[in-house]
């Protein structure tokens, strides 16, 4: 059975960056992913990566913008680390081959992004995530002798040793169906968010919260789970993402009166206010009858004001998306959008080295909550988060591994997972289909746990998720084979999603204030006296979520009224 100093689960930007950092520091590394690494959802990150590299910029300004964007829920020590290390990381990416766009002088060009006080976003057209992900994969191919790749392997659970430290994982080779135990001194989760709990969502079908739920199941706390970002510009029809880069390049948001309504909500930053602010503004316009489209549920994004040549050079991907998925030529007419689920600010609680409260377990990227995003993430800070904390996790895990022997994971654990899978495969054709439960979950979350929330809706959501959890235990599947049995993986993923949804709902019920992405109609004000704190959720002995709190770290920016 495989044994490595560092086992990384998930091969998006956080996972790959962790792998490269660990390999460079001399660790024996394995990186495992349920899809080929370049299919990871980081590929969909469009707009860019923030770093204070301009002469007139300073990382402290980036940090302040991030703190303000987080509605003061972000931990400022971690934000300082992320923002101060950003320029170095951007240069590192440039040196290993990312084809960042240049200005006329041949230096990195920067574009404007939401919630930022300066142009600070380096980019590759509107395929920045793809470009970085592919370049990191180039590096993985380059270092194939130190990084072992397990492509299309599905982790089924994390293993604790007798000391309660994380000592590896059980995984299934999707191609053969074989189960295997992976011993590891440290495990780094880089397995992304749980956007699939929502329907529609900008997130890929693979974003099912695997790592969040796996950590939760072994007793690791989750933090800020109530903070779910709705992106202001997703296609009205199917929820696909239209990059914030469009507004960064100057596009306008228009209501049914043809008016740039953002002047009522954020007169200074207009369309480039923080995402929670813009999404709420759009939802208010829609709710008050100024939406567009047949059902009045849309808003117009007008990209025709951006010069055509610039659109073709810097926003080509959304030209394609508009043409192929909305039948709209964005260079000639406005496109109909609305707020849609996009990102999970919360996740597995970590410190600024990626360490979770469970020794030996790390997390980085969307799966983790450091917390640098607090109540609301700024656009182009997610790529930065994955890379900075992916690297730091890889480095820290490697250093830690040098001081210790390979832990003794209880190998009999594999039988539990084999039995779990056999049980799913062997279920009778009664009960509901996995796909029905998943659909109901997504629709329900998008109704009750969305931009605007209240006690009634959240309570209803809680009841539904309880029922769905119950139904999921008997939901049947059709595929009884071993080779590429995607059906059985779908059943396991559904369980992960239900755990994520439940922790999101209980946290949202608990936070009786409005902050960042959480807006409670029944508690419409931010309440720093009582709620300037993180909500932590741990799985109790009875399997029910238990809530505790941890303080927000404030270094230099005291909470203030947030206006854009």
């Amino acid at each position, binding site marked *: 059975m495989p044994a490595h100093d560092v086992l990384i689960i998930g091969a998006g930007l956080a996972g790959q960056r962790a792998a490269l950092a660990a390999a460079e520091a001399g660790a024996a590394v394995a990186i495992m992913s349920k*899809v*080929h690494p*370049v299919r990871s959802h980081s*590929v969909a990150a469009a707009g860019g990566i923030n770093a204070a590299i301009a002469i007139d910029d300073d990382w402290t300004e980036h940090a302040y913008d991030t703190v303000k964007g987080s509605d003061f829920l972000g931990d400022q020590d971690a934000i300082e680390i992320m923002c101060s290390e950003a320029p170095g990381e951007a240069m590192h990416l440039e040196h290993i081959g990312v084809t960042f*766009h240049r200005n006329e002088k041949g230096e990195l060009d920067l574009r404007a992004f939401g919630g930022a006080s300066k142009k600070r976003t380096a980019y590759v057209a509107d395929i920045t995530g793809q470009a970085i992900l592919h370049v990191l994969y180039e590096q993985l191919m380059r270092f194939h002798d130190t990084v072992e790749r397990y492509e299309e392997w599905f982790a089924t659970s994390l293993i604790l040793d007798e000391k309660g430290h994380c000592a590896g994982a059980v995984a299934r080779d999707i191609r053969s169906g074989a189960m295997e135990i992976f011993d590891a001194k440290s495990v780094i989760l880089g397995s992304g968010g749980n956007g699939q709990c929502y329907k529609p969502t900008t997130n*890929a*079908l693979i974003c099912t919260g695997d790592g969040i739920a796996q950590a939760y199941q072994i007793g690791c706390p989750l933090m800020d789970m109530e903070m779910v970002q709705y992106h202001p510009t997703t296609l009205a029809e199917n929820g696909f993402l239209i990059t914030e880069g469009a507004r960064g390049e100057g596009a306008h948001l228009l209501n049914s009166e043809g008016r740039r309504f953002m002047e009522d909500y954020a007169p200074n930053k207009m369309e480039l206010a923080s995402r929670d602010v813009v999404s709420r503004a759009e939802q208010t316009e829609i709710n008050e009858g100024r939406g567009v489209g047949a059902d009045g549920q849309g808003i117009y994004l007008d990209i025709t004001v951006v010069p055509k040549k610039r659109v073709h050079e810097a926003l080509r991907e959304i030209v394609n998306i508009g043409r192929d998925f909305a039948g709209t030529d964005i260079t000639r007419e406005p496109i109909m959008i609305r707020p849609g689920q996009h990102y999970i600010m919360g996740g597995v609680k970590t410190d600024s080295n990626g360490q979770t409260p469970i020794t030996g377990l790390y997390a980085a990227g969307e799966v983790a909550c450091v917390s640098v995003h607090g109540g609301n993430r700024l656009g182009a800070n997610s790529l930065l988060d994955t890379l900075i904390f992916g690297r730091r996790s890889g480095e820290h895990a490697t250093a830690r591994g040098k001081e210790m022997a390979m832990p003794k994971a209880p190998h009999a654990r594999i039988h539990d997972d084999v039995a779990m899978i056999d049980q799913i495969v062997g279920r009778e054709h009664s009960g509901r289909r996995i796909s029905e439960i998943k659909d109901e979950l997504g629709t329900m979350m998008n109704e009750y746990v969305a931009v605007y929330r209240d006690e009634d809706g959240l309570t209803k959501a809680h009841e539904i998720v309880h029922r769905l959890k119950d139904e999921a235990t008997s939901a049947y599947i059709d*595929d009884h084979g071993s080779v*590429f049995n995607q059906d059985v993986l779908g059943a396991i993923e559904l369980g992960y999603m239900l755990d994520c949804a439940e922790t999101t709902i209980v946290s949202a019920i608990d936070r009786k204030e409005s902050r960042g992405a959480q807006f409670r109609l029944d508690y419409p004000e931010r309440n720093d006296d009582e709620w300037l704190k993180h909500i932590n959720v741990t799985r109790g002995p009875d399997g029910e979520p238990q809530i505790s709190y941890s303080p927000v770290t404030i270094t230099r920016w005291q909470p203030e009224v947030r206006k854009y």
Partner: protein
Amino acid sequence: MAEFTLRLRRYDPESGDAPYWEEHTIELEPHRSVLEAILQAKARFDGSIGIRCSCRAAICGSCGVRINGHPDLACHTHLDKAAKQSSDGVIEVEPMGNMPVIKDLIVDMEEVHWKKIRRVTPWLIAKQPVPEREYIVPRETMVDVTQSMACIQCGACVSDCLAMEVDPEFIGPAALAKAYRFVGDPRDDQHYERLKDLAEDPHGIYDCTHCFMCIDACPKGVAPMSQIMRLRRRAIHDHGIVDRNNGERHEEAFVSLVRQYGLLNEAELLPRSYGGDSALAKFKPAAGKVLLDSLPSIAKALLRRKVTPAAVLKPHKLAKQDLQAVKRIYETLDGKGERNEFNIYISGRDEDNQ
């Protein structure tokens, strides 16, 4: 809502049975994608249908398949269009070609595609010394390589590469487009070495037969064949690489024959590719040898009337004004003083400029 019928190619490697076709009827709006239709069939009728997919928006590159015989992403093909293209109205979906099938619509990309990608040393070999900040490079160069960076490694071009069908060792469109991404990158230190390597490899840049299939197949506008042609231009004109495959001589002969006759003169092409770019080439020993080696092919071509003895002695004749029109094309391109780069990110598509 409308009804559509899918005919899916199914294959279960564990059953011992041969692949077979299976039909499902689904309901969706006509502008929804073939992937959504397959996912609906999977959700409602049969969860065992195997297809890789993730983003649904033509970004992740997972769902490459053949639809009515043509490679594309399932998420990138509208149902109404696919139904119209089909001969009997049923949308036929099968796995991509040139790669072994693992199950249903899932092919082994590692075995073919990724091996070929690794063949082209797919990472930047950075110029030294590495600067403290970014490399200062011309703005256009980074816009230029964006076209090959836009490749999502879906394998659609590999699926239908005709040259690869004949020569499975051909490095192929995706990997060569990837190679351009480094050759076109001014930060890379090994342009000559890369080009020399790809020119000298008998399965390299001159193995492409210029059939345009990959350009048609690519859902992202990467135009792999154009990138291969750009590798050739750079190898020949920027680095003067004369390769042992006679690729460079073949290109020169091709270009000058068309310039001279307005059309390709097949009978002259082979000797000139080996004996040098002149009418006397056929009398050179190198040309004689290859002509001799090619006798079986020549005999076949004569039998199938691809060439006639008369045409060998008397080349194609174009009407005078047509020949002049061809010559004007050459003059225009020569007169530009710079190479015509096939890159939509810089030049835009034709319709963009209208």
